[in-house]
């Protein structure tokens, strides 16, 4: 019952956001800073309204590199997590490589990726994968490992092969952890895509921000940031909705599940 007031919850969130925007608008109106420092929300909306196709096109590019990076991170991440759980040797090698990779600043790597892969979508996707994959691997490996030992004993009593145990026990057991990882990874993938766009290329919201900054077009920078925020939020809630559909059996979903019936 805790969350069956879901729709009013969304309404409340929007109300708070709207109040904050109105405060912002009033503050700009009252203090009148130079438009180059802080434009009012109304100008940002007007900017979006004046060239919707422009923003849509670039947002579309960012969305596609984000989703491609996210999808690859999920597929590769799950595969690596399986390898980590299957062999201690793979665990040590893969975990070390991932930790090294994760501690390198992606901003510093991005120019290299552009040199290797050009200025198209590829380096953006690659950086998105690098940023997103860590949480997927870490969470899925934990989920695959933390299986009830009695469930494994039960499988062995029935002479189940390793693959069958993986498919019928370990994978379903790791699904909740996969979704935790995906919720973190989807935001990281978006950041990765933007980092890639900052370094080179001629498309995407990162590119829009970079160009607008060069022209001191602060309104456009804010407009691009606004779109980014909307995309990031929507993607997060889409993953969360998928979680609710995929895991009706999980403890975290049960009360909602039963209150729906």
């Amino acid at each position, binding site marked *: 019952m805790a969350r069956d007031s879901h729709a009013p919850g969304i309404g409340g969130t929007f109300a708070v956001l709207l109040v904050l925007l109105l405060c912002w608008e009033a503050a700009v109106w009252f203090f009148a800073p130079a438009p180059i420092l802080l434009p009012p929300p109304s100008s940002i909306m007007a900017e979006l309204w004046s060239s919707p196709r422009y923003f849509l096109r670039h947002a579309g590019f960012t969305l596609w590199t984000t989703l491609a990076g996210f999808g690859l991170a999920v597929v590769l991440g799950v595969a690596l997590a399986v390898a980590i759980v299957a062999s201690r040797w793979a665990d040590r090698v893969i975990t070390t490589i991932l930790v090294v990779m994760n501690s390198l600043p992606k901003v510093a790597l991005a120019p290299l990726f552009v040199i290797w892969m050009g200025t198209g979508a590829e380096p953006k996707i690659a950086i998105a994968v690098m940023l997103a994959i860590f949480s997927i691997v870490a969470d899925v490996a934990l989920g695959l490992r933390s299986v009830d030992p009695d469930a494994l004993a039960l499988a062995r009593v029935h002479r*189940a092969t390793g693959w069958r145990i993986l498919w019928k026990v370990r994978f379903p057991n790791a699904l909740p952890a996969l979704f935790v990882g995906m919720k973190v990874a989807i935001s990281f993938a978006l950041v990765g895509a933007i980092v890639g766009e900052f370094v080179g290329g001629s498309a995407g919201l990162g590119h829009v921000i970079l160009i607008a900054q060069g022209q001191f077009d602060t309104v456009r920078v804010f407009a691009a940031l606004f779109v980014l925020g909307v995309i990031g939020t929507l993607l997060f809630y889409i993953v969360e909705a998928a979680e609710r559909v995929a895991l009706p059996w999980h403890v975290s979903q049960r009360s909602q599940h039963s209150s729906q019936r």
Partner: protein
Amino acid sequence: MGVCIEVQGGGKTYASTRGPVIALADVGLSVHEGEFLALLGPSGCGKSTLLRAIAGLDLLTAGAITLRGKPINQPPERMGMVFQRDVLLDWRSIRDNVLLAAEFQGLPKRAHEARAMALLERFGLGAFADRHPWELSGGMRQRAAICRALLCEPEILLMDEPFGALDAMTRDDLNLELSRIQRDGARTIVFVTHSIAEAVYLSDRVAVMSTGPGRVVEVFDIDLPRPRPLALRETPEFARHVAAIRGLFSRLGIVKE
């Protein structure tokens, strides 16, 4: 009756940070074909360790266990097991949890569906086949776990304190059902428990185990007639068996009178 499972000189030593721990030493035990044998003892006597060795899950470090003459190095075919916890998978319906026994062995799921439903019906769970484990009570969940163990018609059923976590009334109920399974299944059952009354009520023979190190001390024949109604537990013959076993525990210093 022929010998089904034979343990000779069975020993199990664990390595621990404080040095080796002896869980079982020189265990000798024969389980006859088609009998219901209880492994009875206090906690720490190694009865679960012995059962897991019979299941082929954990091997002994000394001695040998044979199943009809062949050494048990891995889980044998046609064996079912019930654990103290029901080990039902949350994401599967009760029916699919029961069918898991077939799926693990790579047997076609569809061919077992009718039997799964028949078992669930017999255990009073027919109406709950499409429910999920968390929607059922502890007793119903353990019934489903028994259905799962019985799905593939095991010749040997191993039960590791299956009713230990249940309340007394549910326990009585399941004891009665288990003695029915025993009667019409003609299968060998090895049942681990620390309840003397439960062991006497269910078993053809009770193997009493003791601690320090874990070993089989004595095997009691329980010649009570079958079928055994629950009221059998109030008869003098039943009390005599219980008293004999309690007397042994008392001499071993496990039970103080």
